């Protein structure tokens, strides 16, 4: 029997994927009415562990106790029966249905009449302080409203153990605060909550205790009130780290790439980018922030020539590049490294080894019909030693490498091409702290060599240190371009939600 004071307890959970030990003897416990933060770098095994609690994977070894009774969770339905509710990073909602319809979707039993259902949902909302109109359709909702519906969905099914997988990644700071209010309310009602995150300030703000995972092991569990951010970082990384990002100031910047009134219209008629104008200067990092899906992807792809803008012009050293093919744009020295959510989607061929992936943009450089793999092999070897890429050899398919290593391959290739313009989106997504700092250094190195850099990022703290200027996007529009040294994180948060700052505040001066 397990300890009955815990709502959920894991003992010695081990999960192996082939040769990778994703979870190694993990212990974790949450009491009723408690918020536990699960902290760890990407690849530390957080998501694997949570997938086992929600019935998606089955542990190789170890036990799970719910209210002190040992259970075996063999499917998501089992998890739901046991009162475990998972809120995924990517929402699982039907767009054309209303909130109420989404909430009852998949529950068993007879269809309830609408009135009764509405009453139940209103009752649920009152209890936890949700503010959702049950008749509103999902496609009309903001990201944070959708997330609320997800939470209501699991609560409606009677979940009393909630797992949230990086819930704040898609939220502005203000929306995050609102989510935390809801979480605290749920805690008061006696629910057990596990929140996965790698943002330390949020851990400090919301949790009662923190369990830290490192390389698949639970290294320690500490009370939040007895720790601080620096201590948590050290536990997470396993050694003392020096968190310092430089932003060297460069002279004689010149405008390299200028965008004027660029608009991109989606197939459904909505505007992915709306009248976007800005410039990129040599020797400068332009940070671009915005909540997920504000047009960052479209902006990068437009500059790289993958999307043709419907309106506007783009000048590269005074030459219009609208309508040029990606190959022509690459020849001009504009390089893009976009790290998509699935990491392998664009930029790499997962079935090929490092060498063949290095060839991707250079294979046409030599004359003749044959591919010359020698320079690519040399580059691959150089990257392996320079960036510490872990791979059996340079011909091993990159899909067999871990996420962080895949990313190093991608970013390394783009940076090694000595670009004039480097567009990089989410380059540190999935990297551990040391690798992240290596990427920041590489970016600064290119900047000092005079490259113009566009950095699309997520972490506002890092962005404020690294960028010379920050451009804030909201719903495809430029809300403003600010000097990060003159604005607070909250200011940027407000801008991400679409609020313009007062005239002149935080403006960037030449």
């Amino acid at each position, binding site marked *: 029997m397990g300890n009955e004071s815990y709502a959920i307890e894991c003992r010695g959970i081990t999960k192996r994927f082939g040769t990778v030990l994703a979870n190694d003897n993990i212990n974790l416990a949450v009491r009723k009415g408690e918020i536990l933060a699960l902290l760890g770098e990407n690849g530390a095994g957080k998501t694997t562990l949570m997938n086992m609690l929600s019935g998606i994977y089955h542990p190789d070894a170890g036990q799970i106790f719910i209210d002190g009774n040992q259970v075996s969770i063999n499917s998501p339905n089992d998890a739901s029966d046991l009162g475990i509710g998972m809120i995924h990073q990517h929402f699982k909602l039907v767009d054309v249905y209303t909130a109420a319809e989404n909430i009852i979707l998949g529950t068993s039993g007879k269809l309830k009449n609408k009135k009764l259902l509405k009453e139940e949902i209103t009752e649920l909302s009152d209890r936890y302080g949700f503010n959702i109109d049950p008749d509103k359709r999902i496609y009309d909702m903001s990201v944070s409203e959708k997330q609320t519906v997800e939470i209501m969905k699991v609560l409606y099914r009677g979940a009393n153990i909630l797992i949230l997988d990086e819930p704040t990644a898609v939220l502005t700071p203000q929306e995050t605060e609102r989510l935390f209010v809801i979480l605290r309310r749920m805690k008061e009602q006696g629910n057990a909550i596990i929140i996965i995150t790698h943002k330390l300030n949020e851990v400090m703000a919301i949790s009662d205790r923190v369990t830290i995972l490192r390389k698949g092991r639970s290294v320690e569990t500490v009370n939040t009130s007895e720790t601080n951010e620096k201590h948590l970082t050290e536990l997470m990384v396993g050694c003392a780290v020096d968190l310092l990002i430089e932003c060297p100031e460069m002279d004689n910047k010149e405008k390299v790439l200028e965008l004027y009134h660029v608009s991109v219209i989606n197939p459904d008629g909505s505007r992915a980018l709306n009248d976007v104008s800005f410039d990129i200067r040599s020797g400068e990092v332009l940070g671009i922030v915005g909540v997920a899906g504000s047009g960052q992807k479209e902006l990068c792809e437009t500059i790289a020539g*993958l999307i043709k803008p419907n309106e506007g012009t783009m000048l590269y050293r005074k030459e219009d590049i609208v309508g040029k093919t990606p*190959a022509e744009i690459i020849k001009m020295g504009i390089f893009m490294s976009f790290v998509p959510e699935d990491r392998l989607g664009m930029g790499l061929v997962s079935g090929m080894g490092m060498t063949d992936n290095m060839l991707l943009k250079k294979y046409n450089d030599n004359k003749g019909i044959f591919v010359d793999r020698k320079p690519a092999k040399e580059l691959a070897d150089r990257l392996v030693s320079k960036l510490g890429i872990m791979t059996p050899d340079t011909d091993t398919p990159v899909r067999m490498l871990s996420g962080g290593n895949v990313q190093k391959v991608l970013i390394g290739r783009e940076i090694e091409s000595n670009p004039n313009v480097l567009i990089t989106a989410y380059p540190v997504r999935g990297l551990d702290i040391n690798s992240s700092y290596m990427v920041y250094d590489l970016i600064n190195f290119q900047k000092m060599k005079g490259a113009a850099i566009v950095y699309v990022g997520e972490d506002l703290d890092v962005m404020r240190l690294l960028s010379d200027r920050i451009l804030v996007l909201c719903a495809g529009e430029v809300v403003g371009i600010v000097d990060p040294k003159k604005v607070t994180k909250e200011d940027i948060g407000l801008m991400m939600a679409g609020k313009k700052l007062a005239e002149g505040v935080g403006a960037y001066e030449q």
Partner: protein
Amino acid sequence: MSSKTVREPLLHIVKRDEIPAKKAMVLRIVAFLLALIAGGLFMLSIGCNPIEVYQTIIVGCFRSNMAIQATVKIMIPLVIAALGVSLAFKMRFWNIGAEGQIIMGGVFASYFALFHSDWPHWVLVIVMFLAGALGGAIWAYIPTFCKVRFNTNETLFTLMLNYIAYYIICFLRDGPWCDPNSPGFAKIATFDDNATLDKVLGVHSGWIIAIILLVAVFIYMNYTKQGYELAVVGGSSATATYAGMNVKKIMIRTMLISGGICGIGGMIQATGADATLSVGVAGGVGFTAIIIAWMASLDPRIILIISALFAILEKGSRVVESNMGISADSSAVLQGIILFFIMGCEFFFRYKFQGRAKKGSE
């Protein structure tokens, strides 16, 4: 709490890490041996001695020069068509239309064989070769163009074109190309000797073409820029676009080559093996080639080996049929069993079974 969740199922299916190519080969061989055992059980059940049957298959293929030549003759179109489809498959273009491309290659080549048999032999052979390639390429171009232009589904499209090609032969046989001297039933005339491939070592010279194609495809896939491009498109077309490749152009180019190779197979079959254009010029080779290409993991060198095995099985079954009086259907069952095992073992490349964790494993 429901008690059903307390127990764990006896077996789990677990994804395994990718196994090295060598181990995969061993697994395939084990599967093949198991297939022989299962096939043996089947033969026992219909009252045959399996060892005798297997012996007959092997002996039947190699007992004489003629038997070996017959086996090679079965193998030639299999190799060529498998090479053709493997180019398309490498690009993740599901060309199920090899059958139709073979037929059209045969039809185009036959035109010259029937109506220009008076041309000098070598000129005629070269023209027929090019016509065969052209016929296959055209048949592959139609669905590719529609995919590139209108985003149609190539699997269905190429499949449907097979039937059109088949009925084109039927039409030619019954109408314009019908041999007036044929007694009773409609057929296309036998080609003039001048319009058939020469024999080398007792087999029509198609085997030399097959070997040249094999080497060429191997080099093309592994060492040329175009081969690299098509592999990138197959790996991820988003990545190909991002690297500045013209995906549509690569797709059309690759399919012209893929169809062209299959068309050459048709030309060889008509002018080499059959010395006429029959409705069975492809005879299912286009479909068998798909299985061969996959079993060989699209590697031209392994295609050679797998094709040989298929040819042996095919020829051996025919001998078994005539020598031991087992019906053709039974040998088809045997072929089916072997395929089932070899393809079924692909499952074990990606998954493994895992027993329930032992009690008290703390």
